[in-house]
């Protein structure tokens, strides 16, 4: 956990209200949040706590209705080339091969294709998909597709990787392996990761810090430090320390009466 004086992301009074006809829904009540360079930040909370809205604001897809947010000193006003994004569904294009799918950000940002291709191939090797580069997306299993999706989010070498419940659609076994895989990628790539999930285990296992969000209205309840050493092994989940942190987070949702975790 690297702590620097200047955070990579600085959000102040950041909030979002959806205005519908004569009605206003508070998706995110104004919050302050600093995310440090190289940090793995988990955001955990039940549906409707505003975690996805926060992520979409960081991705520049949704404009905040109050406050401001800076990334590397410049305000986020729209999508930026130094951000990578992974959604719950891999959303690979079925008419493109795995390699061509990973190349999408390179093409959209009109970057050098030869260099992008080399980088894409390298990333696919890293997630053990090197032999599948020329296969079509639907020839891959869900876990393999999501790994390709992560490569796509890293191919243009972004500073910030945003992940919105990336393993939510996978079975428990694959999910655990993907968590280990993601930790390895993060340790190798030195990216700042904002990882949204509704699994407390996943949030604690991966995160340097866990932002706990609660709904109605969406807000930050607490930010929990996870001082567990790296590289973490799944066996860490059986330790008392891990259990204590997970309990501390879980308490927020029991108080809120949220059972839909």
């Amino acid at each position, binding site marked *: 956990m690297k702590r620097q004086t200047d955070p990579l992301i600085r959000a102040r009074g950041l909030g979002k209200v959806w205005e519908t006809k004569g009605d206003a829904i508070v998706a995110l009540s104004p919050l302050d949040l600093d995310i440090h360079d190289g940090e793995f930040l988990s955001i955990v909370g039940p549906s409707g706590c505003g975690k996805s809205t926060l992520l*979409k604001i960081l*991705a*520049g*897809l949704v404009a905040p209705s109050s406050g401001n947010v800076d990334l590397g000193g410049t305000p986020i006003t729209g*999508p*930026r*080339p130094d*951000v990578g*994004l992974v*959604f719950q*569904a891999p*959303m690979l*294009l*079925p*008419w493109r091969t795995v390699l061509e799918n990973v190349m*999408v*950000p390179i*093409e*959209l*940002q009109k970057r050098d294709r030869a260099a992008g291709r080399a980088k894409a191939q390298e990333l696919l090797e890293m*997630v*053990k*998909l090197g032999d599948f580069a020329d296969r*079509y997306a*639907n*020839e*891959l*299993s869900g*876990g*393999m597709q999501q790994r390709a999706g992560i490569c796509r989010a890293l191919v*243009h070498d972004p500073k910030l990787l*945003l992940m919105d419940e990336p393993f939510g659609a996978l079975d428990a076994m*694959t999910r655990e*392996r*993907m968590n*280990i*895989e993601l930790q390895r990628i993060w340790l190798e790539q030195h990216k700042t990761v904002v990882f949204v999930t509704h699994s407390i285990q996943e949030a604690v296992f991966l995160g340097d810090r866990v932002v706990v969000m609660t709904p109605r209205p969406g807000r930050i309840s607490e930010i929990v430090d996870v001082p567990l050493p790296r590289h973490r092994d799944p066996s860490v989940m059986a330790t008392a320390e891990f259990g204590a942190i997970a309990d501390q987070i879980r308490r927020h949702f029991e108080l809120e009466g949220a059972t839909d975790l």
Partner: protein
Amino acid sequence: MTDTSLDIDRAGDRPKPLLRATSPIWHRPAVVSALLLPTTLILWEALVYWLQVPRIIMPAPSEIGVSLWNNLVSVDFYRHVWVTAIEALFGFALGAIIGFVLGAIIGQSPFLEKVFYPYIIAFETLPKVAFAPLVLVWFGYDMTSKVVITAMISLFPLLANTIVGLRATDQDQIDLFRAFCGSRWAIFWRLRLPNALPYIFVGLNVSLIFSLTGAIIGEFVGSREGLGYLIMMRNQTLNIPSVFSILVVLGALGCFFHYVLHVIQRRVLFWAPGVRYNG
């Protein structure tokens, strides 16, 4: 994660269809399908013979066969086939291009869609063949008027399916492209248009079937050549076996068009699961 073998849960262990080596031959659709045509023809021949149906009402298949042969050995016949085929193909291409371009423009915004939709529906419900006499007045007796009529008929399936297809792209998918700084233009060409292709091909299939109808109707209304013209001429001289033989040729032409499009579709839409071949 060093073991990827667990991830490969695709082909290989999928159950193969059981070989029904023991089941009777008439349980196989392909066999029954292949036998259906000769059986029908024999039955037809027999009925016409036994019931002594006049040939100007219903000729026997053998007579149609003879007439077909006479047509196929005549050089002039191919000129008529060529004229009708070209009218249908040019009309189809023109209608498909206009339909696609209009659909792509209207599909750009829900606003445009709402503005134009009532007019599209109104025009779509109009029987386009009713315009045929008018088109003949505007474009003359030659092939141009048939191309225009065919284009009018072929346009709407493309227009409607392009609009629906462009609308079908998942919003999350568009957001992902936006997040990677994809321009509106890039999102259209690299995401929405490929996504719309299965719908567009449904439209192409329908339009292609309509295109022969358009050409024949145009020729019925007024022409000097083409298979529609030939049908009218043979009908007037009560050469009914020849009319039937022209129908056979038209059917073969339609099947050929459909087959060519099918081959193109399989190449272009190799990635689309369960593409249905309508029409």
